[in-house]
C-alpha cells in the first residue's frame, strides 16, 4: 500500500512551517546568553533598535503578558514548581537562555540587530556535573528552590534487603548514558497571527496541537477554543516536539503587541544548544544473583541531568523516572528497588526523545547482564533464558507494569537463529586468532505503547488529562472523512487511518479523506507521542466507524427490507448475507440517510466521534547486533543488525518496518556518533552538525527484520505501540556487541557515546568496572 502523504512531500508541495506565509508577517530572532550561568547587569538595546528594518527589540520587562512558564504542572504532586522565564531578566542559567527578542521585517535585519544588543554579564560558577549539582554546598541554579534536585523518589518492592543479603553474588555496575538529541531535520518554530484581541491563530511545528492550544490559552488568558493551532507538515519530532517552549509563548505575545503576524524559525545552532537534550542518566545498578545464574533482584540509582529548566509540561523525570520504572525489564524478579534524582545543571533542559529514559536503563541493565554472564562463564543467552518471564501470559512486574503478554524468550531465539549464533561463536574464535575482534550483543526488551493514563501511572506519572477522540463522517457522496487531533510527523497516520476506516466501512481506500493538524477542524486528542497513535487513534476510529456502520445498516435495512443483523458492508455495497443480489451501493444508502427514506428514529447524519483509552500495553522485541572493532583505530563497524519485533497485530507492515529502521539508526547514532559535550565552563561544544554527527548512510547497515505476532488481549484490535523500540533496544545490543568483541581485553563498558577515542580507552588500559563481592 502506498502512502497517501507521499505525493505532496515528493513534489515539494507539502507546506512545512517555514513555508507558511502570512501577509505583513515579521521575523523574530532571539538574543541568547553566551554564558552558562551569569547574572545580568544592564541590557542596552539602543543600537539594535535603530537598525534598518527593525520593528522592536524587547526584553523581559517589556513583554506585555505572562513572564514565565510554570513548568511542572503535569508531574507528581510533590514535585517542585520550577518557573522558567520566557525571557530571562536577572540571570541566565545555561548557554542559550533567551534574553531579548528582535523583530524585524526579515530575518537578515533581525539577526544583524541581535548582534548589537549589549548585555553586561557577571559570570557565576557553571554546574555541569549532575552529581556535584546535588551536593548541599553546590551553587544554586534556582535560588528559590533551595537545592538543585527537582525531585527525589524512592521505591521498593519485595524483600530487597533479604534477597541481597542472601545472594551468592552481588554484581555492581555504573553506567553513564550520554546526552543526545532528537534533532529532527526541521527544528522548532511558530507563526502567530491575532484574528482579534481575543482570538489567536498559531502555526506550530508540534506533535500535540491541542496541548499547545491548552498551554498557550492558559498563559495568555484566552478561552481555549479561541486559540486555533494549525500544524502543517512536520519535519520530524521524535518527542522533541511534545513540549511547549518559551519562544512559542513570546511569539504570540509580540505579535499581539505589534499588531502584525510574527514568525520564528529556529536555526540549527539554536536547535542543538537550546531546544532539548535527552537521555542523560547516571546509573548505579546492583544485581543479586545465585551461583546458578538466577537473578533475584535489581537495585538501582538513577540520576538524571535535566539541565537548567524542566521540559514543559512533562518535566525532566521522563528520563530518570521512566528509566527506573522499567528496571525489571523482561526478567522475573523477587525484589526491586530504585532511587531517582532529577538533578538540575547549567545545561540545556532535557526533553523527550523516542524511548525517553527506557533507553538508558535498558542499556545499563543489559550491559550488566552481559557482565554477569562473563563473570559466571555462562552464555549470555542462557543466562537470560534462566531469568526471563514466560512467553504468552500477561505478567505484572514488580514496578507494577501490567505486561499484556509477548514473545519474550522466543524472540531472542529467533534472533539467535537468524544470526546462526553457534557458527558466529566459531567464527569469532577463528578471527580472534588473527587479531580481528568481532562481537555479538543481544538486547531483548519490552516497550510500552499507547501512552495514556494506564501507562503514565505505571511509569510514575499522573494519569489525568489523556482524552483522545476521532471523528468519522460519511459525506453525502458516500466518501468518508476521518478527523483527528493526532498529528503525524512522518509516521503516515493519514495512510493507516484511511486504511482502517476503509476496512471498517467497506469503502475503497481512495474514498477516505483524513484531516489532521488543525484544532479548528478536528476532534480533540492530546497528540502523537509515546507510541500512542496506532493504539489509541485506531481504537477510537474503530469505535466511531462502528457507530457509523450501525447507522448505515439501519438505513439500509429499511431500503432492503431486511434486518440490520442480516446485512454486510463490503466493496462499496451493503447486501443481504447469502443473497448478495439484494444490495444497495453505499452511496445510495448514504443518500437515503441524508435525504430519506430512512426508518423512524434514525439520525440522518452518519457520523460519530468516539474516544478510546487503552489499558497498559507493551510490545516486545529482541535486537541482535554484530560489530567489528578495529583495535588500532578504535573504530566500530556495525556489520549486522537483526530485529525480531512483536507489536501484536500489525496495522501496516511497511510503516512498522519504517519505524523500526528509523529508530535503529538513531540508536546507532546515540551509541557511536552523537554526543553533546560541555566544557567545565558550561560552554556547549556541539552547536552545528559538524560536531553533532547524525548517522549517515555509510554508518547504518541494512537491517534484517523478523516479525512475531502476539496480539494484545486488552487493546482494540490487538494493536500495541512500537514507535520507539529501535532506540530503546539498539544501544544495548551495540554496547554488548562491542564489550563482547573486546572481552579478550577485559573491557567493560560504562558509558555512551563510544566514539573511537572511548573505544581505545577500553582497550588500554583495561578498565574492568564490574565489582564482585
Amino acid at each position, binding site marked *: 500500500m502506498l502512502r497517501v502523504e507521499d505525493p505532496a512531500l515528493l513534489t515539494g508541495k507539502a507546506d*512545512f512551517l517555514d513555508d507558511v506565509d502570512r501577509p505583513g508577517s515579521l521575523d523574530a530572532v532571539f538574543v541568547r546568553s553566551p554564558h552558562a550561568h551569569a547574572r545580568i547587569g544592564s541590557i542596552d538595546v539602543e543600537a539594535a533598535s535603530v537598525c534598518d528594518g527593525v520593528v522592536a527589540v524587547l526584553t523581559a520587562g517589556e513583554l506585555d503578558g505572562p513572564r514565565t512558564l510554570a513548568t511542572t504542572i503535569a508531574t507528581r504532586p510533590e514535585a517542585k514548581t520550577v518557573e522558567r522565564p520566557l525571557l530571562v531578566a536577572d540571570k541566565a542559567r545555561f548557554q542559550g537562555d533567551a534574553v531579548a527578542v528582535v523583530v524585524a521585517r526579515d530575518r537578515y535585519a533581525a539577526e544583524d540587530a541581535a548582534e548589537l544588543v549589549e548585555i553586561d554579564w557577571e559570570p557565576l560558577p557553571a554546574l555541569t556535573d549532575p552529581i556535584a549539582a546535588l551536593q548541599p554546598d553546590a551553587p544554586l541554579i534556582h535560588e528559590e528552590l533551595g537545592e538543585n534536585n527537582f525531585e527525589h523518589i524512592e521505591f521498593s518492592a519485595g524483600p530487597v534487603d533479604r534477597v541481597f543479603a542472601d545472594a551468592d553474588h552481588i554484581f555492581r555496575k555504573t553506567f553513564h548514558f550520554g546526552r543526545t538529541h532528537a534533532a529532527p531535520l*526541521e527544528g522548532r518554530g511558530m507563526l502567530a497571527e491575532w484574528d482579534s484581541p481575543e482570538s489567536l491563530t498559531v502555526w506550530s511545528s508540534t506533535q500535540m496541537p491541542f496541548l499547545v492550544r491548552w498551554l498557550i490559552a492558559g498563559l495568555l488568558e484566552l478561552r481555549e477554543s479561541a486559540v486555533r493551532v494549525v500544524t502543517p507538515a512536520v519535519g520530524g519530532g521524535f518527542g522533541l516536539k511534545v513540549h511547549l517552549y518559551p519562544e512559542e509563548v513570546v511569539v504570540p505575545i509580540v505579535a499581539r503587541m505589534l499588531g502584525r503576524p510574527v514568525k520564528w524559525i529556529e536555526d540549527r545552532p539554536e536547535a542543538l544548544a537550546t531546544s532539548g537534550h535527552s537521555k542523560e542518566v547516571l546509573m548505579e545498578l546492583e544485581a543479586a544473583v545465585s551461583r546458578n545464574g538466577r537473578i533475584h533482584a535489581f537495585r538501582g540509582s538513577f540520576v538524571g541531568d535535566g539541565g537548567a529548566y524542566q521540559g514543559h509540561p512533562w518535566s525532566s523525570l521522563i528520563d530518570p523516572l521512566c528509566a527506573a520504572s522499567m528496571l525489571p525489564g523482561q526478567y522475573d524478579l523477587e525484589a526491586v528497588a530504585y532511587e531517582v534524582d532529577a538533578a538540575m545543571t547549567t545545561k540545556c533542559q532535557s526533553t523527550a526523545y523516542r524511548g525517553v529514559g527506557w533507553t538508558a536503563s535498558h542499556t545499563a541493565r543489559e550491559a550488566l547482564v552481559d557482565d554477569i554472564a562473563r563473570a559466571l562463564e555462562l552464555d549470555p543467552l542462557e543466562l537470560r533464558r534462566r531469568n526471563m518471564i514466560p512467553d504468552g501470559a500477561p505478567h505484572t512486574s514488580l514496578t507494577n507494569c501490567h505486561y499484556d503478554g509477548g514473545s519474550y524468550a522466543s524472540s531472542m531465539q529467533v534472533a539467535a537463529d537468524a544470526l546462526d549464533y553457534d557458527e558466529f561463536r566459531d567464527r569469532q574464535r577463528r578471527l580472534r586468532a588473527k587479531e580481528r575482534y568481532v562481537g555479538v550483543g543481544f538486547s531483548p526488551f519490552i516497550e510500552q505503547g499507547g501512552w495514556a493514563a494506564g501507562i503514565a501511572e505505571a511509569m510514575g506519572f499522573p494519569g489525568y488529562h489523556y482524552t483522545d477522540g476521532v471523528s468519522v463522517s460519511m459525506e453525502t457522496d458516500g466518501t468518508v472523512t476521518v478527523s483527528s487531533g493526532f498529528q503525524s510527523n*512522518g509516521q503516515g497516520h493519514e495512510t493507516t487511518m484511511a486504511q482502517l476506516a476503509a476496512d471498517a466501512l467497506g469503502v475503497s481506500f481512495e474514498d477516505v479523506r483524513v484531516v489532521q493538524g488543525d484544532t479548528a477542524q478536528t476532534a480533540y486528542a492530546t497528540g502523537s507521542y509515546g507510541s500512542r497513535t496506532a493504539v489509541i487513534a485506531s481504537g477510537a476510529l474503530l469505535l466511531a466507524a462502528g457507530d457509523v456502520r450501525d447507522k448505515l445498516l439501519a438505513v439500509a435495512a429499511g431500503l432492503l427490507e431486511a434486518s440490520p443483523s442480516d446485512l454486510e458492508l463490503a466493496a462499496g455495497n451493503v447486501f443481504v448475507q447469502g443473497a448478495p443480489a439484494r444490495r444497495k451501493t453505499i452511496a445510495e444508502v448514504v443518500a437515503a440517510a441524508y435525504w430519506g427514506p430512512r426508518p423512524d428514529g434514525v439520525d440522518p447524519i452518519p457520523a460519530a466521534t468516539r474516544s478510546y483509552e487503552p489499558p497498559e500495553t507493551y510490545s516486545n522485541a529482541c535486537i541482535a547486533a554484530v560489530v567489528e572493532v578495529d583495535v588500532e583505530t578504535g573504530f566500530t563497524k556495525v556489520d549486522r543488525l537483526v530485529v525480531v519485533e512483536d507489536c501484536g497485530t500489525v496495522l501496516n507492515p511497511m510503516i512498522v518496518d519504517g519505524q523500526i529502521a*528509523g529508530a535503529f539508526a538513531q540508536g546507532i547514532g546515540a551509541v557511536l556518533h552523537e554526543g553533546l559535550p560541555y566544557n567545565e565552563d558550561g560552554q556547549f561544544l556541539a552547536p552545528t*552538525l559538524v560536531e553533532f554527527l547524525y548517522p549517515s548512510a*555509510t554508518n547504518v547497515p541494512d537491517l534484517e527484520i523478523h516479525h512475531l505476532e502476539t496480539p494484545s488481549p486488552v487493546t482494540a484490535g490487538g494493536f500495541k505501540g512500537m514507535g520507539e523500540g529501535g532506540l530503546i533496544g539498539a544501544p544495548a545490543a551495540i554496547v554488548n556487541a562491542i564489550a563482547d568483541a573486546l572481552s579478550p581485553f577485559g573491557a567493560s563498558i560504562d558509558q555512551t557515546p563510544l566514539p573511537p577515542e572511548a573505544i581505545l580507552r577500553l582497550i588500554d588500559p583495561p578498565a574492568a568496572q564490574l565489582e564482585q563481592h
Partner: protein
Amino acid sequence: MTEINVEVNGLRFEESVPARLLLSDFLRHQLKLTGTHVGCEHGVCGSCTILLEGVAVRSCLMLAVQVDGASIRTVESLASGEDLHPLQEEFRRAHALQCGFCTPGILMASVDFLGRNPNPSRTEITDMLSGQLCRCTGYTPIVDAIEQAAARLQGAE
C-alpha cells in the same frame, strides 16, 4: 540591490536581490519555491540541494547573485503534472520517506548522481547518500529506491 537574470525550472526571472541573500532564501522566499528545504544552513545536511547547470549544489552555501545568468532546477520541476518522476515513484514504493523534509534535497542529488552514474552499485549509492542526512528512515529504503529508479531509467533508454 543587484539585478539578476536566472532561469528556474524553465522559467526566466529578472529579480532584484540584496547582495547577501542566500540562494536558498531567494528560491524559498522570493520565488516561493518552498520545496527546497533548509535544515542546517551550513552545507552539512543536504536538504537544500538543487541543480545548478545540472550539478547538485547546496543552495544554502551560495548567494543569489552567484546564479546570475545560470539555469536552476528544484524539486518542483521533477514531476510532469500528476506523473511523478521515476525517482519519486520509487521513493514512494520503497517507503524511502517518512516526514519528507530531507526528501527534495535527496531527490535532486540523486538526479545529478544518476545522470553521471546511470548504473550505480549499492556502495556507490550509499557513498553518494553520505552527503544527505535523513533522521527518519535509516537510509536503507532510500538506497533501495535509487537502485530501483536507476534500473527503470536504464530500461527506458
